């Protein structure tokens, strides 16, 4: 891309996404304080809160028990990762009709580069407006959009447009837009840096932008000048669609038990389930893993990891389970109650599983996994479960 070509970058964010999906399924939830998350008796936490719930001071990651105490009328729904994933795919497939340059940063958030699409869709603000309407009409979900010449400014702009709005920062006005804002608004400036800046009476981005560079360099090292550049609304980071992005480093899942346990059947069942989920994600992204790490956190918060590396990378649940089971046994030798179990697959590479010619059973099992993936993608993660672990459904 030439340096002089104007960029039009959008930051799109689905408002209270999990709650919004639940409201599509059950419209009676509209207008009520709703949270998505596990029950308080299972040490559940709030994964998402509606704006009505937020008015009570409820926020993500808050223990569910505390949320219910703040708002006794709170409606709690357990949520479904599979359903949110399908809703997210539907939204981003619709947005993909505007540009292939989409960088999805989470299930409900992405950057879009609309540079060069003016002749097709008009001004980026109008395109953003159309996207918002289409998502609302076709999927009944609310989209908030920030529009500007770069990712950084669009990200801040979308936060300003919430809920359910558009904020367009005019090209060339980025420093003026940022100048009156408190430093903590800038992504990358956390509470510690904000406090240090305040110690030097640098409370606003305009002040940070005008501070002597040498001072920032001396005080914050290399980060100082970079921070100043961002305070001026400058950001050259490109929007990277999946095919341009560096491969992710690992895929992991973990689960905290509602009650600490040393039941080997429960530990094995839960680990197997987590491994299935991690392998399904590998297959979805056409990745293979070389190393598996099993993690246990005990009731006294001591955390222990054990890993194993395969000669041939794999995305096959059963191949990994053969390795995971002995690792779990070794970890359980500590003979203490377990609070959390987790798996991580790393050493990832792009590719497809290749079975041995001499092991047709493994290949048949792998085919069955592909079928399972397709069915679960269509009907939800819990639509098909292994019979020997059905009893796990009643356990948390």
């Amino acid at each position, binding site marked *: 891309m030439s340096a002089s070509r104007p960029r039009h970058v959008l930051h799109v964010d689905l408002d209270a996404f999990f709650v919004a999906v639940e409201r599509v399924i059950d419209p009676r939830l509209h207008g009520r304080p709703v949270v998505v998350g596990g029950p308080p008796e299972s040490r559940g936490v709030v994964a998402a809160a509606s704006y009505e719930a937020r008015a009570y001071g409820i926020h993500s990651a808050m223990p569910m028990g505390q949320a219910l105490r703040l708002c006794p009328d709170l409606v709690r729904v357990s949520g479904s990762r599979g359903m949110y994933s399908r809703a997210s795919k539907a939204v981003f497939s619709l947005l993909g009709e505007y540009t292939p340059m989409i960088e999805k940063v989470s299930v409900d958030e992405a950057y879009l580069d609309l540079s060069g699409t003016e002749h097709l869709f008009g001004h980026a603000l109008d395109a953003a407006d159309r996207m918002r309407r289409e998502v609302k009409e076709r999927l009944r979900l609310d989209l908030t959009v920030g529009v500007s010449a770069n990712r950084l400014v669009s990200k801040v702009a979308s936060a*300003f447009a919430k809920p359910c709005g558009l904020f367009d920062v005019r090209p060339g006005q980025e420093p003026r837009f940022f100048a009156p804002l408190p430093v903590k608004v800038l992504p990358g400036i956390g509470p510690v840096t904000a406090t240090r800046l305040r110690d030097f009476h640098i409370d606003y981005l305009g002040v940070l932008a005008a501070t002597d560079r040498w001072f920032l360099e001396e005080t914050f090292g290399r980060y100082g000048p970079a921070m100043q550049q961002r305070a001026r609304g400058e950001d050259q980071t490109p929007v990277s669609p999946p095919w341009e992005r560096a491969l992710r480093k690992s895929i992991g899942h973990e689960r905290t038990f509602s009650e600490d346990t040393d039941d080997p059947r429960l530990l094995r069942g839960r680990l197997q389930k987590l491994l299935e989920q991690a392998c399904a994600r590998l297959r979805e992204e056409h990745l293979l893993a070389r190393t598996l790490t099993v993690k246990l956190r005990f009731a006294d918060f001591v955390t222990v990891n054990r890993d194993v590396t395969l000669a041939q990378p794999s995305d096959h649940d059963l191949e990994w389970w053969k390795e995971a089971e002995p690792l779990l046994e070794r970890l359980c030798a500590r003979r203490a109650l377990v609070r959390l179990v987790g798996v991580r697959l790393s050493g990832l590479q792009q590719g497809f599983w290749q079975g041995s010619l001499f092991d047709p059973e493994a290949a048949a099992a792998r085919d069955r996994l592909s079928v399972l993936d397709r069915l679960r993608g269509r009907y939800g993660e819990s639509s098909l479960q292994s019979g020997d672990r059905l009893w796990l459904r009643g356990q948390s």
Partner: protein
Amino acid sequence: MAVVTLESISVGGKAAQFADRPGTFFLVLRGDPAEDAEGLQAGDVFAVSEGVDVEAGDLVVWWTGVERTLALARVQADLSFTGVGGFPPPSDEQPARVRGVVVGRLRQFLQEDGAAEA
């Protein structure tokens, strides 16, 4: 001719932080704006930074000299001003006295009951 006005407005949520400092404010567009390249819509909220330093391409807010009436104009390459969205252009009788530069535009789609419009 389209009848359009600009009125002061306070904005809620995080966006309010923009106008927390002196020298910045929000204006809302009322009336029935004319269609043009700016694509203005009734209800558009403009974030304005006070100042008279303008450049070609800027959208500026200027005081018409009539009571507290404000108008929008676009700065041309030769630094002359043209009206936008049905706002009259500055003239010899009403020269552009610039109040500030529009840095951004906010559109929100909440209905009275807080639900989002389609």
